[in-house]
């Protein structure tokens, strides 16, 4: 059986902040349609891995290969336009723009019209905008968010903002979706909804999902594989069941509530 190229392959990723080693010789492989979890105590370097992947930092060492393409050294907008979507630990929607605009801007890398078109609203621009608007509305409808299209995100309840952020990340149909603590601040009921949403997103849009999380419910519930980070180093890998019983992991964490 021809083994398919991994969606994401990271090898030997290392990064330091000043004298502090934030990520140390990190490696991983993500395959199509997987839901993989990246966990570890606070400050373990998980978000740093995401930031390095997205090009927000330049790694000291290591290779980042997305569908075979080297990401290292590229600017963030180049990287994500290759097919990666991302949400953030603290919701980073644009509160000065409507929900619809938040989504439409996701199309910026492939707008199909140029500067002069924008200056004069040419026919090509108007046609493109109509199309982009329709696509965005379609996406909002699938998420059940179309009612809020013209609302500013800050006026929505927290849970809905999270959904919008995930929705925005999907606008360009990425093949890899990075979710940074999507369940932060949610109660158990909301977490269940989120888990359903993530599974549905993976099934409907055929994305590979990489989640950073602390909440056991999600980790045990939808992650198929886990990788555990501590002080920037991988200390364990395996299925949730394997990890749950691993004494090394327990020692590193010491006291995550099992919801």
């Amino acid at each position, binding site marked *: 059986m021809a083994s398919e190229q991994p969606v994401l392959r990271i090898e030997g990723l290392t990064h330091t902040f000043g004298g502090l080693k934030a990520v140390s010789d990190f490696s991983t492989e993500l395959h199509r349609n997987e839901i993989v979890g990246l966990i570890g105590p606070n400050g373990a370097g998980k978000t740093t891995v995401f930031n390095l992947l997205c090009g*927000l930092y330049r790694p000291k060492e290591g290779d980042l290969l997305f569908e075979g393409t080297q990401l290292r050294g590229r600017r963030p907008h180049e990287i994500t336009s290759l097919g990666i979507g991302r949400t953030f630990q603290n919701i980073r929607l644009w509160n000065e723009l409507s929900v*619809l605009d938040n989504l439409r801007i996701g199309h910026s890398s492939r707008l199909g019209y140029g500067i002069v078109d924008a200056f004069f609203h040419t026919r090509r621009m108007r046609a493109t905008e109509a199309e982009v608007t329709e696509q965005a509305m379609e996406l909002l409808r699938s998420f059940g968010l179309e009612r809020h299209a013209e609302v500013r995100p800050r006026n929505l309840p927290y849970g809905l903002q999270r959904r919008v952020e995930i929705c925005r990340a999907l606008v360009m149909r990425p093949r890899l979706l990075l979710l940074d603590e999507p369940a932060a601040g949610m109660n158990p009921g909301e977490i269940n909804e989120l888990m359903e949403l993530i599974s549905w997103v993976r099934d409907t849009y055929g994305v590979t999902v990489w989640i950073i999380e602390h909440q056991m419910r999600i980790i045990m519930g939808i992650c198929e594989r886990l990788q555990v980070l501590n002080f920037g180093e991988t200390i364990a890998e395996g299925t949730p069941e394997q990890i749950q019983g691993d004494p090394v992991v327990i020692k590193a964490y010491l006291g995550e509530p099992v919801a």
Partner: protein
Amino acid sequence: MERRGTPLLIGATFLLTVGASSLGLYNSYVEFLIMLIGINIMLGASLNLINGYMGEFSVGHAAFMGVGAYVASLLTVWLLANDRVFGLPVLPDGASILVFPLALVVGAVAAALFSLLVAVPSFRTRGDYLAIITLAVNFIFKSVIENLDAIGGPRGFMGMGGVLNAMERTWRVPWLMIWVFVSTVLTLYVISRYVRSTMGKGIVAIRDDEIAAEVMAVDTRRLKVVTFMLGCGFAGLAGGLHAHLLGFINPSSYFILQSVMVMVIVYLGGMGSLSGTVISAVGFTLLLEALRPLGVGRWLAVPLILILLMRFRPSGLMGDRELPEVFPWLRRYFPAPEDRFLKETVSGQ
């Protein structure tokens, strides 16, 4: 289409400015004021694009006005007028009709290119440091011109009156008024179109959260370059017109006080509101004229207004809303910002 408001407004303004002027209804002082208002609208709108919509902190906008002023003037005076520096005109009067607008465009392009001095640093710096850079650019502009003795240095440059005469001799029509009108409408049109496009909204995203914008595949560098060049280009256009309005320019005219006056117009009207800029440009220009009896003291009004604004109403007159948002009954005649591409009204807004 019910929304005929904008063409009607433009038409009415045309009649009131160009039309009335060509009929000789205004004395030269009123005409001067009208054109100055137009120029200030252009300056305000162009700076609002950079400081308001994109949320940068450019404090030396007059430098770009100055680049446009000098480049356009040097061209027109050399080609069309008889003056001390260049001597006799190179081209006959008739050419002036075409050369004048072309020179304005060249001035605008020069200003747009000059803006790269600020656009490129803006990739990595924001806030205070960018403000320092824009101030330094303003200083550099003034310093460069002062060192160019051939074109008058600190003493200034004149001859633009002769250019206007050449145009009037060819066809007796209020040329400067026409070009100010056209330029003002063009500036407002292009800027409002730009910010109402998804591409242009990217700059609001940059202002709100630049990192998120980068991650959402917005090419922030390109967008910054485009926006700076657009804003500073229009400032250069305004500068070229301003130079011909005054007939005489010197580097001090395009220095800190002028930069601050444009800032007043922008912050007074509201960062991110074009209708606010128009209103405040009109109001501020008239206010300064009304204060003329105070002599030099009237310049105190400029910093005072900003100080009071920052303290008591930093959002300015209109904040980031346009007139149709503040007065809903206007929506029958003018498009409100969001409506253009969203066919269905989903939330009853």
